[in-house]
């Protein structure tokens, strides 16, 4: 399995340069927010290991909310975020990025504090890279190359199937399958179609994965007597917090919603970028840390084959603690409009949202960490929209493809390489083409 990595470079924007930076970012796009893959500054389309990437300006909209929790609010400086998801490792990608577009990157990052012509940009980027606390990948190990190859395969089979049926009818699915296999073999031999075999998982990777898999249950098992003892105190403390934590849910300004809308729905997938404050105090910080650890663990070992619980529309999602766990960044890439995305979450995994986001300042009140909260649809949407930021530049390596499309294309390939068992399964496979 190909290992995948992330990068997230975050740096404060130099005083008075934000406007200039925003118009520079704008120059990289075809439509508001939608990156030109061939833009002169960072030609994303040239990097065949890059799945998604984005630049956005981090403006802290809700930093004052913490006042309601008896804390002195501190403004955050405006920052520039640059993040993405790659096949292979981050270092290799950043190096390659420097090889192909050092000048463009310099032009963008020269708007950040402490960057000038003499800066070693690669080093600077590594220094400003922030590791995630939790990362979700729709289908782990599926490379950009694989996505493209399988999409081309599906499109070719779609046409060829029509030819086969026209010539021979549809009575014998085994015969159709055989003809399609032959067709693909010919096309591969002549170099029209490519199907790169998946990278083998090395023994070392397998071992590391296995240790990672059992370590959490093992540790939990070992400390379970302690956890059991602590549970009543935890629940009492939690309920006290849940009863007293204020909700701060003003209606987002209409103009802001309209502005966010400008960047949305230019592709079937949209980016979501948001920053929020963590509720003050070690108790909430501890829950947030544990919750994100759990999300990360389950994303690695349980979800990662197309589903995040019941939600199948997310390509990549990431949660990152910042400023000494005072803030969390949440970024995702999802299919459909933002309203459908929020509805999908509210209706399918309100409990999961609560587990993570209820540790955020102003969140709709929860009961026992998983009940309430996002079940209050209107309040939850306000919470999220108040924290959402426009994504000035967003790139996706496979425009027009949803997560479901990619899953279907993979199923088509799988059925081609290993014939589905029996006529019924074969018909089902044909229906996907």
């Amino acid at each position, binding site marked *: 399995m190909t290992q995948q990595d992330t990068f997230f470079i975050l740096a404060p924007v130099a005083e008075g340069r934000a406007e200039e930076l925003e118009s520079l970012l704008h120059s990289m796009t075809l439509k508001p927010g939608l990156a030109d893959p061939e833009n002169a500054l960072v030609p994303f389309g040239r990097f065949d290991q890059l799945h998604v990437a984005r630049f956005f300006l981090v403006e802290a909209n809700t930093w004052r909310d913490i006042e309601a929790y008896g804390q002195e609010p501190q403004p955050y400086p405006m920052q520039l975020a640059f993040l993405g998801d790659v096949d292979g490792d981050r270092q290799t990608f950043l190096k390659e990025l420097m090889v192909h577009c050092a000048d463009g990157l310099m032009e963008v990052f020269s708007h950040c504090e402490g960057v000038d012509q003499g800066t070693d940009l690669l080093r600077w980027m590594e220094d400003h890279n922030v590791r995630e606390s939790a990362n979700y990948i729709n289908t782990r190990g599926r490379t950009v190359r694989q996505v493209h190859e399988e999409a081309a395969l599906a499109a070719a089979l779609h046409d060829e199937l029509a030819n086969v049926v026209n010539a021979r009818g549809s009575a014998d699915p085994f015969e159709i399958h055989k003809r399609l296999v032959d067709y693909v073999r010919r096309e591969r031999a002549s170099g029209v179609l490519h199907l790169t075999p998946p990278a083998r998982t090395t023994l070392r990777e397998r071992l590391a994965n296995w240790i990672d898999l059992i370590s959490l249950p093992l540790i939990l098992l070992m400390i379970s007597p302690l956890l059991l003892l602590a549970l009543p105190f935890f629940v009492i403390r939690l309920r006290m917090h849940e009863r007293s934590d204020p909700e701060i849910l003003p209606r987002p300004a209409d103009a802001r919603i309209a502005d966010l809308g400008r960047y949305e729905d230019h592709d079937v997938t949209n980016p979501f970028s948001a920053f929020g404050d963590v509720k003050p105090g070690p108790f909430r910080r501890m829950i947030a840390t544990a919750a994100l650890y759990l999300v990360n663990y389950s994303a690695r070992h349980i979800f990662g084959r197309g589903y995040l619980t*019941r*939600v199948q529309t997310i390509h990549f999602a990431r949660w990152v603690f910042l400023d000494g766990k005072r803030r969390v960044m949440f970024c995702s890439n999802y*299919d459909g409009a933002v309203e459908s995305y929020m509805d999908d979450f509210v209706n399918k995994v309100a409990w999961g949202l609560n587990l993570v986001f209820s540790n955020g300042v102003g969140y709709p009140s929860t009961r026992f960490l998983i009940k309430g909260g996002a079940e*209050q649809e209107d309040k939850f949407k306000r919470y999220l929209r108040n924290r959402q930021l426009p994504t000035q530049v967003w790139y996706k390596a496979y425009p027009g493809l949803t997560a479901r499309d990619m899953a279907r294309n993979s199923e088509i390939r799988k059925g081609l390489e290993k014939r589905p068992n029996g006529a019924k399964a074969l018909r089902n496979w044909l*229906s996907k083409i």
Partner: protein
Amino acid sequence: MSKTPNIPSDPVEFDDMQGLIRFGHGALVEAEFILCTVKDPVAAGDWLRAAPVTSAKTLDSPPDTALQVAFTAAGLSVFGLSDNATSGFAQPFLSGMAGEDSRSRRLGDTGQNAPENWLWDGAKAHLLVMLYARKGGLADWKQEVLNSDFTAAFTQAHSFPTRPNEGVEPFGFRDGISEPKVDWKNTHPPSKHGREDYSNLISPGEVILGHRNEYNARSGSPLLDASVPGRDALAQAPGVPELRDLGRNGSYLVFRQLAQDVPGFWRYMDAASEGDPTRRDALAAKMVGRERDGTPLISGRRDIEGSPRSNDFTYEDDVNGVSCPLGAHIRRANPRTGDHPHQLEGRIGWLLSTLGFRRRRDKLPGRHDLVASTRFHRLVRRGRVYGPKLTPEDSVKNDAKTEERGLLFICLCADLVRQFEFVQNAWIASPKFNGLTGEADPLLGGRTPVSGVASDGFSIQKADGIEERHTPLPQFVTLKGGGYFFLPGLRALQFIARHGR
């Protein structure tokens, strides 16, 4: 426990509600809608105060006529409502159906359907007057309602005559069969509506503002503080005695003029089926999801809460779309899904489903849980048809005239974004609905690429696994204009009418 108060099941006040919310005025076969602008706000207020607006009260015998009125956001400000009175209205209502490019993009109002090609834009007008009467009664009723006071107060910007249609839409299909049943008694919380499986019952707050909705919360409503003069005419906001509820018992009304190319539709079906009338009807039925007489293509019946026997079906028995195509119009407009995708077996089954562990069952195309919880996206439809009738048989003849005809699509909902816009965006216009690709609603689709993806196809799933594909489909329906309106409660109507003074 939590700070969310349990929403009391307050009784619904039919005498404060416009009749259209509860009744389709089906017996009043004649109707005309008039879009007006206000010439003189004071005179307009006088006319409105005296206007015989029909309430939703049950009468001893059905009325012979009905009148309903609805306002645009501009209309409310003409009547003197300031921003602090209207800021509580939903953002799409305030901004208008064509208010932002992003909205047009979401609704699929691009290409031929784009606002720049519209004949009228609701947001530019102020008031929508809706007149209904029994057969032969409309002319008199119009004269009575649109009296000299009306003429002095309003300019008619656009008038929409309609045609009695006996429940058949212009393409020739029986229409208006699937309507959600509003649980007006509101005695059960929504969780008792059978939410795990599909149910046809919806809470009142899905249609009227200020009442309990399917999320067991109060539907959003503009509430007025003491700074707004004259607000004492309004009901107190439930639970917040210092505020008054302008939206209570009102609803948002969505109005879209959908021109239907009836000859174009039937000629396409005719050509695609090589002139065979039986196959022609069958192809059209596949696109609609019903036969012309309304019989659904799904034959298995299920018990569905709040649904008439003839409409008791879900797509659970047709997950691969072999009976009713996955992208058929009725399947898009109402996917009939419950909150959980599978028949649940006990608590363990529920838990596994919630955690997303039952995906082995999702191998079939129609069962991958992409479209769930239909109950949050229901619309109460109140449309009428316009233009001369043309039968399918006459449509395919060479001399069939392309005339102005179609549907005045009207629907009511309490949340424009979650209900109307969601249905239009995620279900009707989306080329990726239910795992499909490259096709939008076969009837309503605008055929232009949506979010960069082609939308002009239509696929019919077959038992042998070989899809029958119709690409490119011509455009059969064109949007000629549209608007978002507020259909106020009767107290609110009096408040608005008096406000201008």
